[in-house]
């Protein structure tokens, strides 16, 4: 074996990129599992080589969520599709007040994907899983012919355990609640768009992708009366607030000048005609807490590495049917534009 072959994920004579047979269930599929997936995700559940993972959750209520990741490009400043697929799903569990425990991972690989890329993505998933305290306990791989995918799509489903007594959900939101933001929105969406061909955005902005569970845990442990949490993913803050206001039957008002927006995000939004409040984050969340707890919640959040830029950004003003109002810096109120969600590139 020459030096040039030393880093090859598969022995000579096999392939350095994904071929149809990798999804065929035969010898090559087994090689892919043994050489890439099992070593990366190594844990007792996978070691059983069973058809599924047997979980022993105990008596705690469970949160269960799933998400599919189709981001393009698959590697961007601050993350890649692998870390996104793990952290994104764990964040959804965290928003239910759950501690993420177990993940499944389903891979759709496009014929021709370099195995080196797959290895990087899978290693990045493992690193992210370790950060989140979860194990990938079951996985599946399919291969589609060249041209039918964008290199790699990943679905993850996650299960988390909820501490007794927590009732974090949209229906718990009520008039008088304060709305906190864990930080400036939109970095993920802009970082991904900047990495795309054809958009000549030059920025060193990185995605805000980060596990949110520690910040949620800190709020819970500080005894903050938490009513609802929502990560600001697709559709950004605007979509999140619109959904919660509608689900909770309330009116929400946000104070536009209180919402911090990174200069690079603002500049890119000006250029592309986007609203920063509609641009996705993968490491930011909105928290609805009982009004009197707002100040304390803010201090707790600012003590968390992922939420040092937290702010009190608004309030639940009354019952209603889903209206979200923006108080502009000029003292004028207008409805929040939630956007139609179209024409946005794939960012998650």
């Amino acid at each position: 074996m020459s030096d040039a072959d030393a880093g090859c994920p598969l022995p000579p004579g096999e392939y350095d990129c994904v071929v149809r047979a990798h999804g065929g269930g035969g010898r090559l599929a087994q090689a892919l599992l043994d050489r890439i997936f099992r070593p990366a995700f190594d844990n007792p559940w996978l070691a059983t080589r069973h058809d599924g993972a047997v979980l022993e959750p105990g008596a705690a209520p469970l949160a269960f969520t799933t998400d599919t990741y189709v981001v393009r490009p698959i590697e961007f400043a601050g993350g890649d599709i692998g870390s996104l697929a793990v952290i994104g799903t764990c964040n959804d569990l965290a928003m239910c007040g759950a501690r993420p425990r177990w993940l499944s991972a389903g891979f759709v690989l496009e014929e021709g994907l370099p195995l080196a890329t797959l290895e990087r993505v899978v290693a990045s998933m493992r690193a992210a899983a370790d950060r989140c305290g979860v194990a990938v306990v079951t996985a599946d791989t399919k291969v589609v012919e060249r041209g039918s995918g964008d290199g790699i799509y990943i679905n993850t489903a996650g299960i988390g355990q909820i501490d007794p007594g927590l009732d974090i959900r949209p229906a718990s939101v009520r008039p008088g609640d304060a709305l906190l933001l864990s930080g400036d929105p939109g970095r993920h969406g802009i970082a991904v768009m900047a990495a795309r061909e054809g958009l000549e955005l030059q920025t060193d902005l990185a995605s805000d992708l980060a596990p949110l569970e520690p910040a949620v845990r800190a709020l819970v442990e500080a005894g903050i009366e938490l009513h609802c949490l929502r990560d600001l993913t697709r559709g950004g803050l605007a979509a999140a607030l619109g959904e919660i206001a509608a689900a909770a039957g309330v009116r929400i008002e946000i104070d536009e000048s209180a919402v911090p927006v990174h200069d690079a995000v603002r500049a890119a939004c000006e250029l592309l005609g986007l609203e920063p409040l509609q641009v996705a984050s993968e490491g930011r969340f909105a928290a609805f807490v009982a009004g009197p707890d707002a100040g304390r919640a803010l201090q707790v959040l600012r003590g968390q590495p992922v939420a040092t830029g937290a702010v009190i950004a608004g309030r639940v003003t009354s019952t209603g049917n889903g209206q979200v109002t923006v108080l502009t810096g000029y003292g004028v109120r207008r409805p929040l534009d939630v956007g139609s969600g179209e024409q946005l590139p794939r960012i998650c």
Partner: protein
Amino acid sequence: MKYLDEFRDPAAVARLAAHIRSLVTRPWTLMEVCGGQTHGIVRSGIDRLLPPQVSLLHGPGCPVCVTPSGVIDAAVVLAARPEVTVCSFGDMLRVPGSGGDLIAARAAGGDVRMVYGPLDALEVARRCPDREVVFLAVGFETTIPGTAAAVARAAAEDVRNFSVLCAHVRVPPALEALLALPDNRVQAFLAAGHVCTIMGLAEYAPIALRHRVPIVATGFEPVDLLQGIAMALAQLERGQACVENQYSRLVRADGNPDARSLIQAVFQVADRPWRGFGTIAGAGFELRPAFAAFDAERRHGRIAAAVEPAASPCASAQVLRGAMRPDRCAMFATRCTPERPLGPTMVSPEGACNAYFRYRGAAGA
């Protein structure tokens, strides 16, 4: 972004709003010409900071909006031809013509591509020498230099498979057309800052003089807009009617001479139909005879619309003349939304209906 922040400063906005309140003694009606200004006004809500005597009408300055459906129909017909690739700005794809939009033409198998500018369309032509590439050229004086540059370059490089379906328009004759309407209420104009950046101010002086209307070239940020409004109101209160320049950080009296000479070299003034106005004398541009080879209509023959125009419930014609506020339309936010637009003023990010939908909500004002 520091540069823009000054023009969004809440304290400056509050000072200007107070200044305007102290200035106004009578009712006045102003029109902001440009759709970008309309969006700036409605988004920031500065119309609500004005005293009740001051009314703002939203003008026709949305290039997608004033493009008549016949032009879209022609583009749709061209897109259906197997040898033709139609290139267009993204907004334009979704504007309904009388028989569907360019998105539908693409779904039906037509080669329709979104580009960011005319030079991108020229690049498509260079890369696909076996395709007939047609650029749907819409827009005001601001965008015409880009089309002129693409045509001039195509001529210089002898790119023979490139042509433009020209629907370029000029603002000044449209202001005269507005003032000539029997139900005209406009007493002063905020002229579109970016158009003046190219063309300068000279074209506006005769209009101000002849019709006794103040015209203030105005920018797009809240402070710009309030300054422009204050300047126009001060003239009205003093009984003056002249051309002023609020947007002096970008607009020079003689505009951008290089851009103007480029336009001049490639285009000549022509009559042009505007949605909501009919044909306005001198309100558009056409290619000069020397560039006739790049005129899509000459190249591909006179293009008849494939379908008879259907009666539309869309009131964009009135909206574009400032005769109807978007939220007074019975279709607004009921049958007509940005997702299912009945007309261009709901599609375009410069359209007044789109601004009201986004920033006033489905209930309107």
